[in-house]
């Protein structure tokens, strides 16, 4: 009878530990997910701002410089290590400018040896800086 009771106690501890491990894993995954979503939003916002800055210039060189200046105005935080412009397309024919940014994120808790994640954001804006012909 005593052996049966101790077995029951042991099993409840094992169950508690198992469920705790599951809860901790879910909490860690949620933390990483929040970080990823938050950084993704920032990246989208930066790409939009860079494309908007680029769209109000009158030539490709100025446009590229404006986009780069816009990105430089962002100061990376501890988890966001790097933000850079990986693609830029100034297309006067289509009257659009396209900016692609990349953001490197360090996950708060690495998942399966994945410590860094790269996020991409793409933004297209109509060119509004070229004066209309009279």
């Amino acid at each position, binding site marked *: 009878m005593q052996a049966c009771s101790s077995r029951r106690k042991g099993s409840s501890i094992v169950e508690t530990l198992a469920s705790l491990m599951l809860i901790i894993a879910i909490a860690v995954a949620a933390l990483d997910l929040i970080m990823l979503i938050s950084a993704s939003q920032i990246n989208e916002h930066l790409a939009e*701002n860079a494309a908007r800055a680029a769209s109000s*210039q009158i*030539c490709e060189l*100025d446009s590229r*410089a*404006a986009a780069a200046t*816009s990105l430089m105005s962002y100061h990376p935080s501890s988890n966001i290590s790097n933000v850079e412009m990986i693609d830029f397309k100034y297309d006067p024919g289509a009257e659009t400018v396209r900016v692609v940014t990349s953001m490197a994120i360090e996950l708060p808790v690495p998942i399966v040896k994945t410590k860094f994640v790269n996020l991409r954001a793409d933004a297209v804006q109509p060119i509004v800086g070229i004066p209309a012909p009279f």
Partner: protein
Amino acid sequence: MLRKQGGSAIAELGPALFLLLIVGVFPVVDAMFAGYTYFASVLLNNLELREASRIPASDTEDAMTRIAYNWQNSGLGRLASVIGQPQTQCAYNVVNIEGAVHPGTETYVTVSTTVTVKPCCPIPFFGKIPCLGAPVTYSIVGKKIMENQSLASM
């Protein structure tokens, strides 16, 4: 023997229910509500930022008050039980474009929105912990390029 076991189960139900509600259910409901109010505040900041980037600087105060009023009377703002009025501040900064052939500037507007909200289910034992027993203050800051640079000085 059977009678004792049955009684103990009922006697344990009270404390177990108390612990489940105070430590489990109410904090989770409060945490979910805190997430909801945070994103409702982010939405308010986005609305204000979008407006501030396209109107003259002299009009921002009226516009921000109007947007905050509309937000508070809409579904999202109403559900987030805000204490007082959301506070908004706008600032403009001019940045020189580096490496440009034709020297120019970019003007940015920064809108910071501060919202204080009550917890959904205030828990008496956590009276001093924000979002569980005490009100929580969110300060959201957004930055956007001005649609028309000259509006920043008007």
